[in-house]
């Protein structure tokens, strides 16, 4: 068991805003080992991006944070408004078009970290960039080295972003919905690329998305995030096979399953809570069909059911009987 590359212990992040303090992350803990891929699933507004920014050490200036994050056992500073990311962590964003500097050639953007962070000479940095471009599957990298972002397709731009993420020789790559903006065929290539990179370079990957199918395809373990906290964590088979939290159950039911024809989709009633005025108790209670009075107060943090799975639902056993509306595709 190699030491986990990423250790997050009871992370809290609060953002001050005109409407009051937003509790974006409320006590999140998880680990990711080298070479592993961990998925974080949740609807928008669940605080997943703030979590990523915290790991990067780039919290906004109006943020205050508690708890600890360590990357390859080095503490990540949690102060808001820092200008420089912490070493060993890279990120791949959702919108390739806006995440690349429009006025600088892509080759230069890839060779920038090797040159200025790792101190390589101009020649070596260029070769390193070309190597990375080949690694992420960009054909004829020499010609495309001097292209500008607007001259590339969505898919290629995303590959450039991935090359950039790798260029700083990170220990862990954070992916914030990297394939959402791409069409399905390109999405599939990118996902296979991530898996190959993870195997070849041993880099850990945290994959944040609202798309359960993508997580099922690429990740070994997954956490379900809701209202700034993890409601359920565990291996893919456990969490998708035997969901032990009503929210996970709801998410799985909301995924259209093409192979089974027209099965009725069951949407989760209501909408995610306002992170400013969070009442006590289980944050999912207002939308939970299994909710009881005892769910209304007390702190609901993850408790481990077994080696493969933990949940924040106190009535998880009530779900043990009911299988999800249908079998999740085992990846």
């Amino acid at each position, binding site marked *: 068991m190699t030491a986990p590359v990423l250790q997050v212990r009871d992370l809290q992040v609060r*953002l*001050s*805003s*005109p*409407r009051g303090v*937003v509790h*974006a992350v409320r006590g999140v803990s998880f680990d990711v080992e080298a070479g592993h891929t961990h998925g974080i699933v949740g609807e928008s*507004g669940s605080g997943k*991006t*703030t979590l990523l*920014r915290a790991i990067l050490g780039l919290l*906004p*200036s*109006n*943020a205050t944070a508690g708890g600890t994050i360590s990357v390859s056992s080095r503490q990540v500073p949690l102060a808001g408004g820092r200008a420089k990311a912490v070493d060993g962590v890279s990120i791949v*964003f959702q919108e390739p078009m806006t*995440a690349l500097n429009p006025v600088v050639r892509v080759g230069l953007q890839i060779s920038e970290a090797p040159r200025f962070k790792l101190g390589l000479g101009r020649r070596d940095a260029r070769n390193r960039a070309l190597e990375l471009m080949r690694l992420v599957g960009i054909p004829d990298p020499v010609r495309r080295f001097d292209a500008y972002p607007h001259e590339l397709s969505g898919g290629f731009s995303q590959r450039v972003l991935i090359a950039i993420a790798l260029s700083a020789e990170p220990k862990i790559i954070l992916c*914030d919905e990297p394939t959402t903006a791409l069409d399905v065929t390109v999405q599939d290539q990118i996902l296979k690329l991530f898996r190959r990179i993870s195997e070849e370079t041993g880099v850990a990957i945290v994959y944040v998305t609202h798309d359960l199918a993508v997580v099922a395809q690429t990740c070994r373990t997954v956490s379900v995030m809701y209202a700034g906290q993890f409601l359920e964590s565990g291996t893919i088979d456990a969490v998708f096979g035997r969901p032990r939290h009503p929210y996970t159950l709801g998410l799985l039911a909301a995924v259209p399953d093409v192979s089974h024809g027209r099965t009725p989709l069951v949407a989760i009633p209501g909408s995610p809570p306002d*992170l400013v005025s969070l009442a006590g108790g289980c944050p999912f209670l207002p939308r939970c069909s299994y909710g009881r009075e005892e769910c209304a107060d007390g702190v609901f943090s993850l408790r481990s059911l077994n080696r493969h799975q933990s949940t924040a639902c106190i009535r998880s056993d009530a779900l043990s009987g009911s299988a999800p509306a249908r079998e999740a595709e085992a990846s």
Partner: protein
Amino acid sequence: MTTPSRSESRKAVRGRRSYSLMIGTGLLGVIVLAAILAPWITPYDPLAHDLDTILAPPSSDHLLGTDHLGRDVWTRLLYAARLDLLIGVGAVITPFLTGTLLGAVAGYYGGRIDLAVSAATDMLMAFPYYVLIIALVFSLGPGIPSIFIAMAIVAWVSYARIVRGEVLSARGQQYVMAAKTLGYTDLRIIVRHILPNVITQPVTYAMSDIVVIIVGVVTLSYLGLGVPPPTPDWGSMIASGQSFMTTQWQLSTIPGIAVVIVGLSFSLIGDGLTHRLRPE
């Protein structure tokens, strides 16, 4: 990374900006009040010469001293505010209206109208402005009318360019398509739908334009084409103080500072408006 947290921080920042609107209007209010209450604030007549006390330094009875004809500088400063504010605001209205209208029409219809308006704006851009001013002052004589006309002839160019750009981009928006499908007349679409959305730019521009015009009058007075004596105006005060800069520097400086303060208040208002009107 457009995460809720980031837009949250942007809103936080924007909230604070409303101060500039308050400070701006406050400052302007003080100036306008001082101009209106001038007769009660200072006992002197802005036009009365007192040839025995010319170029007196600031003292208890003359707060800012006297000018080269013995007139009280503080009094003239207050009465001048009336004229210069009038000129500043007045000379902006016509260019604002013509410019916005022409810009909207050019942006909306494009084609020959757009070409004509753009040609006109390009031509005026390259026009030696003060040849026009002098020609006007020759034919109409110096004073406020020629300033207004000169500004009206040249100043609309910027408004036209700004509004044209905004309307061009607005034209492609869905809400315009929708309005068209509902069969509204072009005029109605422009006036009731497009303009309200794009009006922030020309309005805030007008704010800085007022300052520019007041300073412009200063330059005209320096050229001897400004407001004819003896009416007090900051421009002629600065210009006539110019030859006393090394001995009585306050004669030129103080009206200059007055212009700056007015400029500041209008630009703060402009900033405040920009953020208040700009859709979130």
